[in-house]
Every structure is written in structure tokens, then in C-alpha cells.
């Protein structure tokens, strides 16, 4: 009898643990609603509440995260969720009407538009920031200062696979050193954009390179090898200035260093790319919190992009963004 009761106690203990875990979550939640209610009371005007759901590109995600953080300082009652299923995955949910906003590192494709239309989802495209895809080499590299897009194509096109293996094959002026390449994995928008611009066909790339969805892997690999080359988002270069050097890109009008200015004024071509947020028009019209957030996002876009270490829009683009946002309402 005693034995069985101690065993029952063990079972009860397990159950109690599970209940306690849940209860603990509940208490914290109660406490937080109390504080957020207090804060909302202090804010001026009618307090907004409700949920905003966004999904999409992991490149644009941090920008919307920064926007959400800043927005919630004044509107703590609004719960903003940022998911990162990738641009394609984000559009899939967006066109099923499951999300209010979709972050995208490329414009919406025709078949995605068709899916949206079939589900009766109307949307507005907002160009919110610029990214510069950056070709990088190690600080220890001496010969890679500028590459033309033709050289990049020679290096990355599918025909180069297994054939272009030493740097002198890319440019006779380069030493006969073995090439090591790092790049984005095939699931990322970065890969889509780079291949479309460099090899001329989206998705067409040599495959004998170190592919990773995580740009930090590229940072590590390139910084440790003087003969390595990789490409990644501009923020990763900014954060790793001490280990990496940017390779200038010559798109036909001379060598251009990737920077906020050259991406903004359009001289860093073809690798500067627009980043988008797509807004579900119906959500904008029916949910006051979505309307408030999007209007605020557009009006404060420059501060948000700066805070999130993205490249802000130029004056012309900002005007277009404002008029695009005005057209929703």
C-alpha cells in the first residue's frame, strides 16, 4: 500500500509539474496584461489593441521587428508577430488571408498574384528599404578589389562547375590560387536575386560552393581563407568590417563600392535590391491597428531602417512609398 502510494505520488508530481508550468505562464500573463493596460492608459488618444500578423522573408523580418518594437512603445496594446517562413512561404500564407503583412525580398510573382486573386485577397506593395547584396573577400586577400559582372558570371554560372577552379581562369591578372566559394542556400531570396542578376537566370548557379541559409557561415568561411569569395546581405558586411572586405562591382559603369549611398542613389548596380512589405487591403480597412501600424511604418520609415541597420530609401522612393500608402485607404 505504501509503495503504491509513493508511486502515485510520483505520477501526481508529474501532473503537478505540468499544471504548475501552465499556471506559472498564466500568472505572468495576468501580470503583463495589467502592466500593459496601465501603460496604454497613460498613452494619449484612443488605445489601440489587437493583433497584427506578419510573415515572409527573413531578410526583411528584422526591419518589421524593429518597426514593431518602436510602434509598441506608444501602442503597447498591439501584439505584433513576425514570422520568417521566407518570401515564398510568406506569400503563400498571405494569399490565403492568414497574415496581415507579408515581408518580401523580391516583388510578388505572377503565380502568387494569381493565388491571391483566386482567394479574393487584394494587396498593396510598399517598397520600404534597400539592400545591397555584397560580394566579399577576406581582409587577407590582396588581389580582389573589383570584379566586373562578367567575371562574376564566369565565376558563378552553372558552366563553371568543376571547371573554373583557380583565380587566373577568372582574370589572367589574378594569381593561380584555388577558388573557394561561399554563398546563399537555394531556399533564400538572396540566392534568387543574386543568380537572376549575375548568371541571368533565377536559380541558375554552380553547385560546387559552400551553400548556407545562414550568412554567418559565409562570414566565417570567407574571413578564414585569403582565396575565398562569398556574397551576403549588406548588414553582415557592416557587422563584420574587421574580418571582411567588400569587393567593388563593375556593372558596366566602373567599379562601385557597396555602401548606403551607392545603393540609395542607384549607382551600385545590379546588386542593390528593393525590399518590400505587402499589405492586405482588407485587413488595412477592417483592423484599425493594422491601418495605424502601416501608416506609422510609412511615415517613420527612415528612422526604422536606420535603427534596424538597413539602407534607407532616397527622397524619390520615399515619396512613392507615401503615395502608395495613401492609395490603400
Amino acid at each position, binding site marked *: 500500500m505504501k*509503495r*503504491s502510494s*509513493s*508511486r*502515485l505520488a*510520483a*505520477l501526481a*508530481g*508529474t*501532473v503537478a*509539474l*505540468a*499544471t504548475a*508550468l*501552465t499556471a*506559472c*505562464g498564466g500568472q*505572468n*500573463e495576468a501580470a*503583463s*496584461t495589467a502592466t*500593459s493596460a496601465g501603460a496604454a492608459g497613460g498613452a494619449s488618444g484612443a488605445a489601440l489593441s489587437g*493583433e497584427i*500578423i506578419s*510573415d515572409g522573408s*527573413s531578410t526583411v*523580418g*528584422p526591419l518589421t*521587428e*524593429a518597426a*514593431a*518594437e*518602436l510602434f*509598441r512603445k506608444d501602442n503597447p496594446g498591439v*501584439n*505584433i*508577430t*513576425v*514570422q*520568417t*517562413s521566407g518570401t515564398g512561404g510568406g506569400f503563400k*500564407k498571405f494569399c*490565403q488571408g*492568414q497574415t496581415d503583412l507579408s515581408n518580401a525580398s523580391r516583388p510578388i510573382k505572377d503565380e502568387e498574384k494569381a493565388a491571391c486573386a483566386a482567394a479574393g485577397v487584394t494587396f498593396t506593395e510598399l517598397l520600404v528599404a534597400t539592400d545591397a547584396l555584397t560580394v566579399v573577400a577576406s581582409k587577407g586577400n590582396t588581389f580582389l578589389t573589383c570584379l566586373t559582372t562578367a567575371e562574376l558570371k564566369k565565376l558563378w554560372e552553372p558552366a563553371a562547375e568543376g571547371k573554373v577552379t583557380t583565380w587566373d581562369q577568372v582574370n589572367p591578372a589574378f594569381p593561380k590560387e584555388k577558388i573557394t566559394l561561399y554563398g546563399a542556400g537555394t531556399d533564400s531570396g538572396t540566392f534568387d536575386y543574386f543568380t537572376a542578376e549575375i548568371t541571368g537566370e533565377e536559380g541558375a548557379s554552380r553547385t560546387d560552393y559552400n551553400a548556407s*541559409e*545562414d*550568412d*554567418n557561415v559565409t562570414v566565417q568561411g570567407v574571413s578564414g581563407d585569403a582565396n575565398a569569395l562569398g556574397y551576403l*546581405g549588406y*548588414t*553582415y558586411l*557592416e*557587422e*563584420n568590417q574587421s574580418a571582411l572586405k567588400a569587393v567593388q562591382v563593375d556593372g558596366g559603369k566602373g567599379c562601385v563600392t557597396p555602401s548606403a549611398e551607392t545603393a540609395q542613389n542607384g549607382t551600385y548596380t545590379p546588386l542593390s535590391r528593393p525590399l518590400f512589405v505587402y499589405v492586405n487591403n482588407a485587413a488595412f480597412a477592417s483592423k484599425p491597428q493594422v491601418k495605424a501600424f502601416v501608416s506609422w511604418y510609412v511615415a517613420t520609415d527612415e528612422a526604422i531602417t536606420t*535603427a*534596424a*541597420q538597413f539602407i534607407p530609401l532616397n527622397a524619390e522612393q520615399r515619396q512613392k512609398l507615401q503615395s502608395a500608402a495613401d492609395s490603400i485607404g
Partner: protein
Amino acid sequence: MAALSDLTPPPAPSPAQPPTRPLRAERHGDDSPASIAFLVALWLTLLFACSVLAVLLLDAFISGLPRLDGALFTAYASTINPDGAGARAAILGSVWVLGVTAALAIPLGVAAAVYLEEFADNQRWYNRLIEANLQNLAAVPAIIYGMLTAGVALAVGLRRGVVLAGGLALALLILPVIIIATREALRAVPSEIRQASLALGATPLTTVWRQTLPAAVPGVATGTILALSRAMGEAAPLLLLGGATFITYDPDGLLSGFTTLPIQIFGWAGRPQEELRTVASAAIMVLLVLLLAMNTLAIVIRNRYQKRW
């Protein structure tokens, strides 16, 4: 993803055979060079596995150390202030999702195991089919359960990125493991106990409820906790379901959005900011401590209450 063999509880010794002893060369009087070489190879393998683990843990610990502070537990994820980013939403999200998982999987799993072990007729084809499928289900990759739950959620009109959907996916994931562990534990209870109970006039249901099940509790608890700790470390099915990488509020119900520790760590680890990767390492330590605590609890329960018949 942990190997399945780690998760099934140690097989209880069956009453018919003596417990197997560890293989030692001396015990069998076998000290041929081949057998010693094999033993050395085994030890080296073990050493290699342990040192890889140690290096990984040490690396995470050293890089996470600067951020093992209070803000890690009280602050939300942050992009504009990466130095003060915390895993509060992720910790609470893990607790919520795991709570739902436990509430769904434990009663269902134990009940299913009791039926299969104590009441089901093994000769029936459908029971044998269920049995064969259970073993297969335990080996199904976690992401499949995420896809299944996503499909079901879409069909019934439930939003996908919510606590309930996450808990459901993880419950499906660990259900076969719990059923198998519970059946092992029930099988280890000697049939004499059941026979004695039945002989004293107890109904089969009373026998299970008052005798068999209480005797099996240590095994059930061990298996369940190990299964839950597997669920806790799982990111793939939840990512597929739309567990968010960024949430700045506490989950407040079954239909609330959520993130969990593994998702949050995954999100942070890929970010350009060094500070966010540091906080990812710190969050890894939190997750690790939680997992170790759960596994320790499982071991304690097993050692304390397990009875050899």
C-alpha cells in the same frame, strides 16, 4: 533532433531472464588481441562523442556568458537594442506549448497503452496493425507532424501559429514514444499481481486502476518526461506551423501566437548582429539547463521508485 534510442526508457528486466550484464572482456575470459582492440575502439568512440559534446557546450557557454543575466529572462526579443534582448516570450512560449503537449499527450498515450497492453486482443488484425504502426510512427521525422498539423489546422479553420496548434503537433510527435514507454512499463509488472487482484474479485478495470497502473508509474513517468524533453528541443515542426521568431508579448491563451526557445535561438543565430548571437548562446544555456533538469527528474524517479520484481 535526438536519436530515438535515447528516448525509449531502458527496457525493464523481464521476469523470465536474469538481467543482462555488461560485456566485459575479462568476465568472459576473452583477452584475445582482437577483442581488446574492439574494446579500445569502443572507448575511443565514446571519448570522441563526449569530447565533441564538451567542445560544443563549452563554446556556447563561453560565448553566452556575458548575457547570462536577468534581462535574458525578463526582456523581450529586440532588434534595435540587441544588447538588452531577452528570451522572455520564448521561455513562456515553451512553457505554454509544453503544457498543452503534456495535457494532450499524457492522458491519451497512457490510455492507449493500457488498452493495447491490458485489454486488446493481440490476435485481431486491427490491433496488430495499430501495433506495427506505432513503431513506425515513433520513427517519423518531426517535421512531418508539423505538416500534418498545419494541414489539419487549415482544414478546420484554426490559425496555425498558435499555442494550441504547436502543442498539438508536439503531442502527435511524442504520442508514440509515450505509448511505447507505457507499454514497456506495464509489461514489466508481473502477471501474478494481476492474477492475485482478479482472484480476490476485482474487476479487470479495478485491477488496472489500482494495481497495474500504479506499479507502472515510474516507467511511465520516466518515458513521459524524456518524451517531453524531446518535444521541448524541437524547432522544425513549430517553425513550419508558423511559430514566430519575434514576439514582444506574453502568450495568453491557447489561441495566442507564440515562439519557443529553439525557434528563438534559431532566429537569433542567423542574425548579423554579434550581440544577438551572444544572446542566442545564452538562451542555449537556458534550454540546456531546463532539459538537463527534466532528464535528471526522470532519472531520479526511475532510481527511486523503480522496483525489480
